[in-house]
């Protein structure tokens, strides 16, 4: 049995298609990343899988339970950390945690081992109101609350958005530990550098899944040769290359430009003092090309 199984899920708001025939599976002990921009449909999908929203067609199972018929069972088995801060602002850190434990008929003591690593970091502030916490601390408390009933599937909707790179790295370290306990994790993120932390990912764009695969496989399957250009005057060179019909695409990547040509032979024509170095693509290059091809 798969931890999550999604079959041809469609969702419309009026005439607008929010989700278009979404299908994928998540195994136990797997971190599955849903990668896409705001408005791609990630949150709607989370809400369907956590039984808070009904799809227009298609079906989905979580831990073998149907999201429509068996919604009560699913709610007992999953932990959900929505994108917007989900805690009670006027309750303290400790009160929030006790509250979520009691809702699920358990106690903090019973499952403390599961949250210990995370909760220990915010325990010094256990008497502080949740509304007074900083972003990183809120994120840790929300994860603790989503875990306190020992769920077997965890849904995390953009848990690291707006969080600084150090806290983000820490957070992914925590997810890795949870995965080792056999918990299946579906997590969404707009940060491409987090993709490598996932076992498998789905790129999602305007309600459609562009590809589902292991990050390293997505890179290996990249269909084009890609070149980097280093320069002290990147913007001028970018404009110059944009005007060149042999160039299929050119974008800034950190301190370099990444260039894809329409056809290999044309590279020879594009020398005028620009040094092209063939490189292996990043996951972000892959997403950008898939986006372009789906348009």
């Amino acid at each position: 049995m798969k931890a999550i199984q999604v079959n041809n899920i469609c969702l419309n708001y009026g005439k607008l298609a929010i989700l278009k025939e979404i299908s994928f599976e998540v195994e136990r002990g797997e971190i599955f990343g849903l990668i896409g921009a705001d408005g791609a449909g990630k949150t709607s999908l989370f809400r369907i899988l956590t039984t808070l929203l009904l799809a227009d067609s298609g079906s989905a199972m979580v831990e073998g339970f149907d999201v429509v018929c068996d919604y009560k069972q699913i709610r007992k088995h999953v932990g959900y950390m929505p994108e917007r801060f989900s805690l009670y602002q006027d309750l303290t850190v400790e009160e929030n945690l006790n509250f979520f434990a009691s809702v699920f008929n358990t106690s903090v003591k019973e499952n403390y081992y599961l949250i210990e690593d995370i909760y220990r970091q915010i325990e010094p502030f256990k008497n502080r109101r949740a509304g007074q916490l900083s972003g990183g601390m809120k994120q840790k408390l929300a994860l603790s609350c989503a875990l306190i009933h020992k769920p077997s599937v965890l849904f995390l909707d953009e848990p690291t958005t707006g969080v600084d790179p150090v806290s983000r790295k820490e957070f992914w370290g925590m997810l890795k530990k949870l995965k080792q306990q056999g918990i299946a994790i579906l997590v969404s993120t707009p940060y491409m550098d987090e993709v490598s932390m996932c076992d498998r990912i789905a790129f999602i764009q305007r309600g459609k899944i562009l590809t589902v695969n292991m990050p390293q496989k997505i890179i290996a399957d990249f269909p084009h040769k890609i070149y980097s250009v280093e320069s002290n005057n990147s913007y001028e060179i970018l404009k110059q290359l944009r005007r060149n019909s042999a160039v299929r695409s050119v974008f800034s990547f950190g301190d370099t430009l990444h260039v894809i040509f329409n056809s290999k032979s044309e590279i020879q024509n594009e020398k005028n003092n620009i040094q092209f170095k063939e490189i292996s693509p990043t996951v972000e290059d892959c997403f950008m090309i898939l986006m372009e091809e789906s348009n």
Partner: protein
Amino acid sequence: MEKVISTNKLTKKFGNFIAVDSIEFEVEKGEIFGFLGANGAGKTTAMRMLCGLSRPTSGSGMVAGFDIASQQEDIKKNIGYMSQKFALYDDLKVWENLRLFGGIYGMKKKEIEDKTAQILQELGFEKERNTLAKLLPLGWKQKLAFSVSIFHEPKIVFLDEPTGGVDPVTRRRFWELIYRAVQRGITVFVTTHYMDEAEYCNRVSIMVDGKIEVLDTPKNLKAAFNAANMDDVFQQLARKATRINN
């Protein structure tokens, strides 16, 4: 070289807590300056002082030629500001947003009209002139918000995490708008959590526990920290933080 920002031991205390601890730096005209730091390092507090929204506890600073402690209203007239949280009025149309901000900055009616036409054309937004801001896709909103923030041709624009939540292509297109503004001579002061964007800046500073820990070009910082990229530099520095705020 003309300095658009300069600070001298700029400090902000809240009670015993030193949010910004005697920071000193300068930003030159036409520069893209990246202002980095972990959550809680003091970036927002520092930025609020530079924008004339908060008075320093001690120290001083000049922004766009005005004193941040005594000429706050002059500063507000001469800077632009865009944040991810607030930038546009959702219930106003695209052109109404431009008119509103133009009006606030005291631009003439004719000037507002001409500039509106020019911006909509540059952005390829002519068809969206009468669209409510809230109906625009996020990437378009960000582009429009940036155009609004420099509508009155400020000397410097402050961008507070301007590119959150958009796809990688849209994010890069946004940065191309920034470059275009810089070519017109506008200075850009930007905060971001995307470390690849730190590399698009001419110079970056990284704040740790209220202090500016390093300030240099991305290239020099990477060399100094023996790091492959700016994320590496950031991780090495921000991990030194002792203030509990994560």
